[in-house]
């Protein structure tokens, strides 16, 4: 492979060197420096943990449907054999803690950012690889280590982590969760943070430095914009989580007193609220970290499958940039009930509600992209539309929570759970799968079965809507989140039916995911239908300038980019090529342009 491409590479000596193609199996598939291989590694690692996180969610839902009853089938008998198949209170704590942490840090992050960030950034900007391929490899293996720490936490003495995904002290200190499992899972957060920072340094630098000639910032696909802004947020705010995790580990393992207060502290003690500050300084950017790539991907897909340029591309870009900036200054809205200065609270409320303005620009641009488009309801498009729908619901419920007076009532209820599941769980989940169905042919050189994909979509979007709407309702009725048995309280007893139905929908949602699992293994392990180089007929570089799947060096010749990513329906292109799309680096024949009328 190296010898075949040597002439092409030497023709451009100053443009982008590439590391030599790996020769051993070890370097090709395990410690690979190729961004496309690393992307697939992240994809596998993330999807496996997505399944694990989903399984934990099913156990939580079982507990809320049938508190204290035996978990049926294989699950109860095997996993819970110590307690006779019943979910005990400590196990329940571990379930919701691990579910949250796994889904956020070890499933959605690796799939959306790890896999698609790695795969898309170099291919869509016209680069041969990331700026720092070795760092990229190190990032994945550090991440794999953090996943091992999570798995180890399940097996630890005195049970796994049990302080919730937010790991608030004093519950997360030795006073609340003395087990090794909590220490391991906090260590896993720290290690995965290091992996994320490594990856993000790569993404930020790569987009700045390795764009192909002509690939200006305003010709980048929206997916790259989303991933790049996410990387910037990751670089700046994951280390703050790192500092919080570090202090928590010191408190747990070395006897320091940053967060321990009150009777448990020997001399004065620290301040549990300090942890909340550090956590949410990171935590609020984090919700945009998880959604920005999905916004970008969906922004592209809506244009691709409406066969229409993205409406007001610049507006979408600036809206995303504005949200990114604002996301850094609103974290206090998670802490309205910590007794903060009311004036400070109002400031945070104002900033929080201001975010809905750029978010609305974004949303209207999506809708206006669809307006009068020639919509093709392919599976990726279905997932993209589903993402728009659930994100709309999630965004609207965010207004309730951003408002102090309503938040005082809704704080820590299932309403919050429903809200953030609609936004950062469901929307980024559907965005991930939109991306997966769309770029799967480019990643694997095969095509997932589209009919199974449609079944997967409909069960997912209907299931998601019903499950999280059920949570919103329960929360609005006053059900606190994280209750082991909500119905032991008289004022919640009447919500048993609602919770039970929500659980049934959740089980159906999970069953629908099995369709994807089947589709995935059947296609990845089987032969699969080989798609063409550009099955969707779009103009971005990875479809128009690279092979399927791309060669080790991505592009034989680094393309010179001439236009933006969403050029559809140009009459001059239709005259010259007889199609409604044109590649970003594709030249129109001179006569094709000359024959065109002055005004389209």
């Amino acid at each position, binding site marked *: 492979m190296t010898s075949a491409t040597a002439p092409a590479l030497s023709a451009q000596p100053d*443009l*982008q*060197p590439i590391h030599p193609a790996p020769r051993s199996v070890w370097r090709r598939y395990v410690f690979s420096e190729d961004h496309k291989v690393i992307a697939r590694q992240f994809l596998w690692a993330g999807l496996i943990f997505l399944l694990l996180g989903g399984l934990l969610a099913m156990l939580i839902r079982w507990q809320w449907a049938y508190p204290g009853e035996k978990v049926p089938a294989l699950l109860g008998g095997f996993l819970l054999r110590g307690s006779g198949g019943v979910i005990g209170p400590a196990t329940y704590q571990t379930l919701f803690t691990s579910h949250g942490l796994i889904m956020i840090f070890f499933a959605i992050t690796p799939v959306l950012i790890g896999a698609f960030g790695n795969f898309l950034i170099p291919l869509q900007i016209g680069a041969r690889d990331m*700026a*720092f391929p070795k*760092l990229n490899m190190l990032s994945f293996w550090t991440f794999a280590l953090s996943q091992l720490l999570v798995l180890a936490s399940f097996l630890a003495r005195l049970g796994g982590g049990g302080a919730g995904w937010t790991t608030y002290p004093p519950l997360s200190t030795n006073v609340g969760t003395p087990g090794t499992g909590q220490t391991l899972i906090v260590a896993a957060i720290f290690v995965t943070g290091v992996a994320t*920072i490594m990856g*993000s*340094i*790569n993404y930020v630098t790569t987009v*700045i*430095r*390795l*764009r*192909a*000639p002509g690939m*200006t910032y*305003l*010709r980048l696909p929206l997916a790259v914009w989303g991933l790049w802004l996410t990387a910037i947020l990751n670089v*700046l705010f994951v*280390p*703050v989580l*790192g*500092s*919080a995790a*570090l*202090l928590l580990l010191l408190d747990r393992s*070395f006897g*320091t*007193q*940053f967060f321990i207060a009150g009777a448990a502290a*020997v*001399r*004065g*003690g*620290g*301040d549990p609220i*300090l942890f909340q*500050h550090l956590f949410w300084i990171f935590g609020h950017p984090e919700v945009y970290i998880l959604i920005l790539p999905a916004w970008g991907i969906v922004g592209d897909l809506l*244009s691709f499958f409406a066969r229409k*340029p*993205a409406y*007001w*591309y610049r507006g979408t870009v600036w809206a995303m940039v504005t949200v990114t900036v604002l996301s850094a200054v609103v974290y206090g809205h998670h802490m309205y009930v910590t007794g903060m200065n009311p004036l400070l609270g109002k400031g945070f409320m104002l900033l929080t509600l201001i975010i809905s303005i750029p978010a609305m620009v974004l949303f209207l641009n999506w809708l206006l992209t669809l307006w009068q488009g020639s919509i093709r309801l392919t599976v990726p498009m279905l997932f993209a539309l589903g993402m728009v729908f659930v994100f709309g619901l999630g965004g609207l419920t965010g207004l309730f929570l951003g408002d102090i007076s309503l938040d005082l009532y809704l704080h820590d209820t299932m309403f919050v759970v429903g809200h953030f599941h609609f936004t950062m769980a469901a929307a980024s989940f559907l965005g991930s799968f939109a991306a997966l169905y769309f770029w799967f042919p480019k990643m694997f050189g095969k095509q997932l079965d589209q009919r199974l994909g449609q079944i997967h979509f409909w069960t997912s979007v209907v299931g998601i809507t019903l499950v999280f709407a059920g949570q919103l309702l329960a929360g609005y009725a006053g059900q606190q989140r994280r209750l082991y048995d909500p119905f032991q309280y008289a004022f919640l007893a009447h919500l048993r039916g609602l919770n039970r139905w929500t659980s049934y929908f959740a089980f159906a949602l999970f069953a629908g995911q099995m369709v994807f699992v089947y589709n995935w293994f059947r296609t990845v392990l089987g032969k699969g239908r080989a798609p063409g180089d550009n099955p969707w007929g779009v103009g971005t570089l990875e479809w128009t300038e690279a092979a399927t799947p791309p060669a080790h060096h991505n592009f034989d010749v680094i393309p*010179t980019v*001439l*236009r*933006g990513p*969403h*050029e559809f*329906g*140009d*009459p*001059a292109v239709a005259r010259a090529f007889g199609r409604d799309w044109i590649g970003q680096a594709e030249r*129109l024949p*001179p006569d094709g*342009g000359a024959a065109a009328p*002055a*005004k*389209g």
Partner: protein
Amino acid sequence: MAATSIFQGSGGAEARGARVVALPAMRPPFTAYLGMVVFLASWTMMFAGLLFGYGLVRSRAPVWPPLDQPPLPLLLPGLNTAVAAGSSAALLVALRSFRGGRARTGARALALAAALGAAFLALQARVWAALWADGLHLDTGPYASAFYALTGFHALHVLVGVASLAWLAARAARRAYGPDHHLPVRLWSMYWHFVGAVWLVIYLAVYVA
């Protein structure tokens, strides 16, 4: 190239008369430099988080330092600030020497920078030992926690820096760096100046203020 476009979408540039902007030829050293800048920005936030924690804990305490706990010394850490500054200065000289082709001076200056870094750690160890003997332990409250966590985490960074500078000095002694090849020295310099600057902030915020 006069392709007309009826869109207001992202392809406007071509419609307004194709302007192809060629990037300058890729310069790997600048890419590495930029990556280092991004990394240091990230690590600035890490230390900012720790210092925020320090500030919050301190602002909540009625008396600082607590009456029954030893106050922090000023002299030895002050001397250490000078040592850190000297080490950074030596590294500046080293980089300038490599650029100017004075490899021998560069190697010596690198060795001096590493030695001063080691001296910094030794002095810091003395400060810790003295305070420990005075009864300031990790588990004696948030005052001790904040002090040991900040200085300890910083000292880890110094340790990494000293090891790397020593390695660079050993390579420089074998004439590995010259006017057109000194990228590792440049990158580690950035790291080292950053660690020095963090020390200055810690000295002012924790020892002096």
